[in-house]
């Protein structure tokens, strides 16, 4: 590997370019017409225009990306997160073009992208999964049978994609037909695949995930857990590591299950096993993300290594740089995502131009930003502006540092989630680490 095309934009494109530089690799950025002045374009050694602003004509266009890689003489492609990162056809197209896909084998991406197949594979590997239908359901009566067996509420989910998109909660059998129809419609519109499956719905669970890394020589390790319970509409807003108040037995069970699951599917490179954790410490596999995640910096801050550099090494066929016993957790780290959204209007997107941007700095603070003063925040892409990561000797220390950092941060020109984040970090339940995934939607931080 000599030259990496970064098939993404924003903060993650810049993060990957930085890692490539560290690893001595040349970089190629890609951009849409809307992003011609974006920082990630300037960061790279070379930049190639893909096409018009809509993502499907630029960042989601496999052919244009492969063409850009060929034209720039790239021999590897890093997909980042979002866009084509979990599209197995893209992974396959990159490989078929004779280039290295910096991520897992296409087959692992495909298997984990099919949420019912992922469930089946994980169950077979001994990973606890939520009681539910073994595969897609053809009509609501199958969900009714499950409801009779495990009780309501249930949740109907799309089989063709994850991230909580298109989920429908069902509280009683009488609502099943309507919910089934709605979930099928949403699945079709979001993932072009109407298949749905059904699971028991957990009230007020925590979202805890485990970072795994695997090499092509059969070694699989975990880099401990991340707590990501503070979400709105299943989109994470605040993440931290270690997970506060996690029973030792649960932690051990989660990490062992994550490693076993990754090993069972012959996984290679970086991945995340996501779980729901109930009040009693029981845990259930949710899905596997077959890519680097937005929240990977909190893991880097407590465990030490550069995860994106490790992805590059593994993609080049090298062995993992660490053994399991080398990887400890030191101190605590917390990340907040600052989105161009209006928290006072139910997180309505807020496109526009950033007229003023001031970012925090100092000991224990890390900033990953895709924007600068003057950046135009387009309607065409995800509203993530930047992430702040605070490290501390312990959780209270990291939280205090983050509270101070938020006070020093200014975003003008677009609405941002900053006021929400300030409120959230002052909340007594957040301070004492009593978190669950529904606290934002239930209005805890209003």
């Amino acid at each position, binding site marked *: 590997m000599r030259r990496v095309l970064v098939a993404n934009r924003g903060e993650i494109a810049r993060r990957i370019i930085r890692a490539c530089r560290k690893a001595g690799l040349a970089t190629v950025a890609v951009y849409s017409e809307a992003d011609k002045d974006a920082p990630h374009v300037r960061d790279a050694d070379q930049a190639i225009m893909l096409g018009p602003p*809509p993502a499907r004509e630029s960042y989601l266009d496999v052919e244009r990306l492969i063409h850009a890689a060929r034209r720039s003489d790239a021999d590897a492609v890093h997909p980042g997160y979002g866009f084509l990162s979990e599209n197995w056809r893209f992974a396959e197209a990159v490989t078929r073009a004779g280039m290295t896909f910096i991520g897992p084998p296409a087959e692992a991406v495909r298997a984990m992208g099919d949420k019912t197949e992922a469930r089946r594979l994980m169950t077979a590997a001994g990973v606890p999964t939520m009681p539910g239908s073994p595969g897609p359901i053809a009509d609501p009566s199958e969900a009714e049978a499950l409801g009779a067996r495990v009780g309501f509420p249930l949740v109907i989910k799309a089989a063709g994609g994850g991230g909580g998109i298109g989920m429908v909660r069902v509280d009683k059998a009488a609502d099943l037909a309507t919910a089934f129809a709605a979930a099928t419609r949403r699945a079709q519109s979001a993932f072009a695949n109407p298949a749905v499956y059904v699971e028991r719905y957990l009230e007020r669970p925590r979202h805890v995930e485990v970072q795994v890394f695997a090499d092509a020589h059969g070694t699989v390790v975990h880099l401990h857990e991340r707590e990501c319970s503070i979400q709105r509409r299943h989109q994470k807003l605040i993440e931290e590591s270690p997970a506060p108040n996690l029973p030792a037995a649960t932690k051990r069970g989660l990490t062992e299950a994550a490693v076993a699951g990754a090993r069972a599917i012959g996984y290679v490179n970086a991945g995340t096993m996501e779980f729901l954790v109930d009040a009693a410490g029981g845990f259930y596999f949710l899905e596997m993300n077959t890519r680097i995640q937005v929240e990977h910096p909190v893991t880097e801050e407590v465990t030490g290594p550069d995860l994106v550099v490790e992805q590059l090494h593994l993609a080049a066929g090298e062995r993992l740089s660490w053994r399991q016993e080398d990887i400890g957790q030191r101190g605590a780290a917390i990340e907040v995502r600052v989105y*161009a*959204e209006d928290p006072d209007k139910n997180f*309505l*997107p807020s*496109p*526009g131009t950033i007229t003023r941007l001031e970012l925090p700095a100092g000991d224990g603070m890390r900033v990953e930003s895709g924007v600068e003063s003057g950046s135009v925040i387009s*309607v*065409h*892409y*995800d*509203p993530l502006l930047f992430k702040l990561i605070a490290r501390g000797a312990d959780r209270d220390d990291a939280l205090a540092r983050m509270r101070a950092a938020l006070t020093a941060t200014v975003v003008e020109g677009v609405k941002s989630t900053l006021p929400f984040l300030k409120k959230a970090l002052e909340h007594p339940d957040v301070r004492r680490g009593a978190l669950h995934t529904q606290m934002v939607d239930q209005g805890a931080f209003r």
Partner: protein
Amino acid sequence: MPEEIKAHITGVVFQIPTKKGDKVGAGDPVIVLESMKMEIPVEAPRAGVVREIKVQEGQTVQEGDTVAVLD
């Protein structure tokens, strides 16, 4: 009295679930915008009949633009 329905946000027209002559109730989505990967319905402010749809799928609309007219 005809009433103009305006976009409350800048976005791209993602779907048009209604057409001219359709009866809609207050709060029904008349068109659906997509902005920053979110689908955001533009709802009928009251019950009525759709007199005109002023946008097409894929079109960019600015906050405050009229997207449809209600009879």
